[in-house]
């Protein structure tokens, strides 16, 4: 029957091509929406260091909107006592640097290795306030190298080195607190306070004590573990993830309905040839196989078209402009298991849609398919 199916499709290349493109667009949407959902999920997953407590203004979602009172660091130090290794105010901004969304962190250079566990990948640590360290993702995203000069917020800075930290998901530029304060002015002050605990300290107890203490000294702050803070920030994107998953499901349902309609149209247009096949001896199963194989060829062709388009789009469309959410970079990756899942779902959707429509045609007698009843031209 595959011979008949291919002959049939070759005979009507225009309709075949239209069917392939129509289904291919939906499969393409599916192949992009699933990686998007997973990219958002990955973004929301825990990252950061559990020994770091972040103090931020209460009920603030975007960290750059938070403001930390100038004397809060002393209060935190008093609450945590000898459990505290060090506490640092952080100037936090999300801004565009030469067209790339960047998280800028202005924090005392002494904390970079101890608190933030930055590891120098190339170059050197800054020696003065005109130098910065570039995070690895930012370096990759912007194509910046050690020694490059970049313009941040209207002021030139030299890239002293490239560094990476554990669980880093963002395109980040690091500069000293003093340099950041000079750059943005003293009005907004720090946005976060990062308390780095001693290894011997129990983080949960420390956090509880800090929350209780903060309420007594200043009620409008929350304390999170750094990983929980990242997760909290990512949770705000849950709706977007749900929407993209829903859209992916809709795309597959649309493939089913589209296949049903295409197969129904094909079967209706071919009632007479199907009747002939039945009359010359092909049974219902054989004719059903013919319709399913025909739909299967359309399905595979649609899938291959969509897969090629998705790979090209991710590589050349998204590739040069990495997916960034709030300054955080997350990769859009179409993995082999996702591609196989797409093939399986697209095939299942096509075959289900075809089977639903073919069932109705196969149920009737060959005479009815041939249009041979009273009132027909043959009666």
């Amino acid at each position, binding site marked *: 029957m595959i*011979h*008949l199916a291919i*002959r*049939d499709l*070759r*005979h*009507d290349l225009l309709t075949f091509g239209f069917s392939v493109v129509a289904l291919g667009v939906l499969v393409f949407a599916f192949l992009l929406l699933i990686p998007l959902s997973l990219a958002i999920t990955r973004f929301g997953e825990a990252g950061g260091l559990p020994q770091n407590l972040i103090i931020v203004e209460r009920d603030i979602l975007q960290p750059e909107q938070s403001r930390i009172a100038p004397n809060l660091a002393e209060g935190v130090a008093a609450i945590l006592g000898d459990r505290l290794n060090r506490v640092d105010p952080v100037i936090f901004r999300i801004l565009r640097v030469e067209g790339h969304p960047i998280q800028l962190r202005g924090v005392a250079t002494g904390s970079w290795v101890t608190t933030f566990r930055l590891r120098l990948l190339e170059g050197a640590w800054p020696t003065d306030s005109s130098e910065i360290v570039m995070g690895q993702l930012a370096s990759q995203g912007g194509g910046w190298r050690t020694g490059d000069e970049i313009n941040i917020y209207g002021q030139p800075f030299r890239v002293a080195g490239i560094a990476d930290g554990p669980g880093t998901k963002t395109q980040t530029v690091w500069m000293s607190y003093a340099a950041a304060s000079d750059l943005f002015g003293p009005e907004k002050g720090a946005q976060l306070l990062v308390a780095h605990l001693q290894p011997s300290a129990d983080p949960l107890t420390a956090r509880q004590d800090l929350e209780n203490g903060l309420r007594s000294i200043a009620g409008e702050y929350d304390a999170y573990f750094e990983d929980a803070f990242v997760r909290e920030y990512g949770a705000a994107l849950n709706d977007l993830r749900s929407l993209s998953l829903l859209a992916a499901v809709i795309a597959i349902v649309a493939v089913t309905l589209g296949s049903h309609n295409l197969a129904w149209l094909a079967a209706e247009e071919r009632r*007479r*040839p199907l*009747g*002939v*096949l*039945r*009359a*010359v*001896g*092909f*049974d*219902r199963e*054989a004719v059903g196989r013919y319709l399913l194989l025909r739909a299967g060829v359309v399905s595979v062709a649609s899938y291959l078209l969509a897969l090629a388009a998705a790979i090209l789009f991710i590589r050349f469309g998204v590739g040069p402009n990495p997916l960034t959410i709030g300054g955080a970079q997350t990769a859009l990756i179409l993995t082999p298991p996702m591609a196989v899942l797409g093939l399986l779902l697209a095939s299942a959707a096509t075959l289900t849609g075809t089977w639903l429509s073919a069932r109705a045609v196969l149920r009737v*007698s*060959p*005479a*009815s398919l*041939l249009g*041979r*009843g*009273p*009132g027909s*031209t*043959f*009666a």
Partner: protein
Amino acid sequence: MSRSFVQTQSLTRTYRRGSEDVHALLDVTLAIPPSAFAVVFGPSGSGKSTLLNLIGGIDRPTSGGLRVDGVELNALTERQLDRYRRDHVGFVFQFNNLLPNLDALENVALPLVAQGQSWARARSQARDQLTALGMGDRVGHRPAELSGGEQQRVALARAVISGPDLVLADEPTGDLDSKSAETVLDLMSSLNQDLGATFVIATHNPRLESRATQVIELTNGRMSPPAPQR
């Protein structure tokens, strides 16, 4: 009297059209002997095609008995009816009903493929069959590239290639000029004699009466006079 190959007993086929029952065939009783060249005459709407549909197993009667070569068709399951058509019946339709996307060779090969043969083997046999019917030089042509007479010869080749016991032809010359019609009728007569298959032909064409071994007349779904046998 010879035994009957096709035998019907009060055969009736009723269709529902809206709230009305339409009797396409009503109470038809007839017997056709083996290897007959039976011709069914009757005006449009008289039930000729319906009778052929029922005998060919592409439709089922509303009531009555229908035996072909001793087999009661009413008792067959759908699958058995599929096998009956595949192994015992060849069809020739008025508008030939060749598949437009297949060439003549492939159209003729179809019944053999339905029987489980490979396309290569079926094609080879189809080539011989088409050559035997004078179509050897047209095997690679699609139906649209053939004349009406040629199309009908291809349809005839398709009907007989699997060696059926019964060939049913519904207005096989209805769409042809007189010369092509004569060629097709000659072929059918010779195939009837060569193959020994029973031919049942529904037609308006009075020239067929002279070739018929049995004439059946239908009017408004009923048999007219008793069927004469020659």
